[in-house]
């Protein structure tokens, strides 16, 4: 599972290459770079093309049978709904948890930011496999607090919110720092708004692109997460993909194309949004 796209390498929508001054000779692209571009393009395109081809061709010519196959399978809809359910829970939970906290830290406790950074970076240090081991020991019913959460929706949603921390906090924090929340807050307060109103009706509308950015990234992660779901026996879409893949190669390819399309749509949307986001400044250090 990949890490660190939005957080560490935030959007690069802003900023173009520097243009050479007039009269300066325009150099040519060195050969190794050209090779890298060509090889890179081939390397990334070929597996996609091969998968698409495999999904459309079962050895008897062009057909959509593989797609029709999973579209007719009850389990497909079941697992997509389950994954969507968790994705929704995760996004909502993550935003509800992180947005007010990030706002509060930026407004009143700026010295706390390193702690926030540390905590939200922890999921990078604890990859999902380790998290599953840890969660099993803590909440499998045999931990210091003998409540068995493993097997409940709460556990998986909680774990997924944790996995979304770096991305959600990164996006929201960046967004908050790019706007002047002190002025906005004071202005709203002077007009008699309470905290809730400020958050929802003043800050959030300005933060929307950042929130959606974080949300889409988290959504994409949850829709593709395999480790936790598999080890804790939840029946989500990636589990279904793996199951079909073990029985029918072409349906697996079709589902892979579908899965890639979801990822593409989510992250493509982020790219579009970030291009228009105010103050999506690259951050080099943290």
């Amino acid at each position, binding site marked *: 599972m990949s890490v660190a796209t939005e957080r560490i390498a935030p959007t690069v929508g802003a900023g173009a290459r520097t243009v050479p001054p007039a009269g300066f000779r325009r150099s040519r692209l060195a050969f190794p770079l050209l090779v890298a571009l060509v090889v890179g393009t081939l390397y990334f395109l070929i597996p996609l093309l091969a998968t698409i081809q495999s999904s459309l061709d079962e050895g008897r010519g062009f057909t959509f049978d593989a797609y029709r196959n999973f579209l007719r399978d009850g*389990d497909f809809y079941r697992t997509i709904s389950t994954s969507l359910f968790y994705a929704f829970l995760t996004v909502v939970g993550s935003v509800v948890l992180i947005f007010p906290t990030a706002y509060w830290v930026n407004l009143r406790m700026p010295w706390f930011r390193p702690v926030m950074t540390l905590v939200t970076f922890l999921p990078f240090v604890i990859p999902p496999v380790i998290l599953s081991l840890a969660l*099993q020991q803590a909440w*499998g*019913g045999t931990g210091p607090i003998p*409540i*068995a*959460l*493993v*097997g*409940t*929706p709460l556990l998986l949603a909680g774990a997924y919110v944790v996995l979304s921390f770096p991305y959600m906090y990164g996006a929201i924090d960046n967004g908050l720092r790019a706007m002047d929340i002190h002025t906005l807050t004071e202005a709203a307060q002077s007009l008699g708004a309470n905290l809730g109103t400020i958050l929802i009706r003043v800050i959030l509308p300005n933060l929307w692109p950042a929130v959606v950015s974080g949300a889409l990234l988290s959504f994409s992660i949850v829709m593709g997460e395999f480790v936790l779901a*598999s080890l*804790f*026996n*939840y*029946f989500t879409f990636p*589990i*279904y993909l*793996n*199951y079909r*893949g*073990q*029985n*029918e*190669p072409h349906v*697996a390819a079709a589902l892979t194309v579908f899965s890639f399309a979801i990822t593409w749509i989510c992250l493509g949307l982020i790219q579009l949004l970030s291009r228009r986001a105010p103050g999506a400044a690259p951050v080099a250090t943290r």
Partner: protein
Amino acid sequence: MGPLDDRLKRREFLARGARWGGGLVLSTAAADLLAACGSTTAAPASDQQLLSGSGPIPLDILKSRVISVDKGVLNATGIPPEWADYQDILDGMQKNFSVTVDYKAQAEFSSAQEIQAIKSTISGNGFVPDIGDVGPALGVTAVQENLVVAYKNANWKDVPDLMKESSGKYCGEYYGVQAFVVNTKVVTNVPADWADLQKPEYRHKIGIDGDPRQATDAQMAVWSAALANGGSVDNIQPGIDFFNHLKSSGNYTPARSDKAHMQTGEVGIGIFWDYLGLGFRDSFAGNPDIKVVIPPSGSLAGYYVAIVSKYAKHPWAARLWNEYIMSDEGQNFYLKGYAHPARYLAMASAGKIPADLAAKLPSSDQYKNVKFVTPDQQTKAKDALAANWTG
């Protein structure tokens, strides 16, 4: 050599398996008889008594409770429809008893994970499987960890002793043997035995059904290799060595011998259960053509046992399932799926096996040298693999 002779030979082979259990057969039968006599008292037992007893529960009571109390639902894991013709059994539950089996298709449900599923839902949250279909070592684990209840179905006495737990906590359902399943489109010369697998023409062709540390099926493949290479039911190390040798010569591929890979030929020679291989053969219908060979110098029989979860949310359905799979109809479905039903011997001598069904299995000659193992031996082998198998 007519089908009758074949049946006799098969009976012999199964009898050896049964005798393996030792002289306990007779004493267990006697004990069962006594228990049966003792329990038929005049007063009808309450539901509570029925559920906490070790059965069997009369079929009509089960049939009515399953609808009234369990709402016609059974939660199950680890019973893929394409495995040993569970499809027909699942359909049968629906047709005969109006019970819908809510089957979770997480294909990674190795036996260990089925146990885990029961364990992690002790609080009653999440998906609570009512029954399980696990390898015997995991059956023993389930008993030790107190996750199952005792239930002796109506046909308990027909099951060979080595395949069941004496107090009823698990019951053998069916078994198969390790076989070479060959995709003849990518493999021209079908290997006849283990020694053949070393040939350079099988480069990158040989695979097993997953990781032997994780799946019983794969474990038995390695163990069968051990039998053929100087090992025994007590020593799996030669099997590990054999596969290490296949790895270094390049003949072994880590790609899993699942249905998809067997079909595409990604794995040319898969070593796994004969009933799976035969099922694939039928399912592919010649495209590609599959040959199933049982290696004479080393093949282990592996049985799977049925367990009833202590935390079952549908206890009547769980017991009904147990009754159904061990009934003549259920056992014959296993046979249709090319697995040897646990009650084969008893059913054959009572003439309850249709001749055409019996003829569908490979000739019993091939099963001559098959060996059975005890759960203890399986645990020992599992530990050896965990320590020495490096993937």
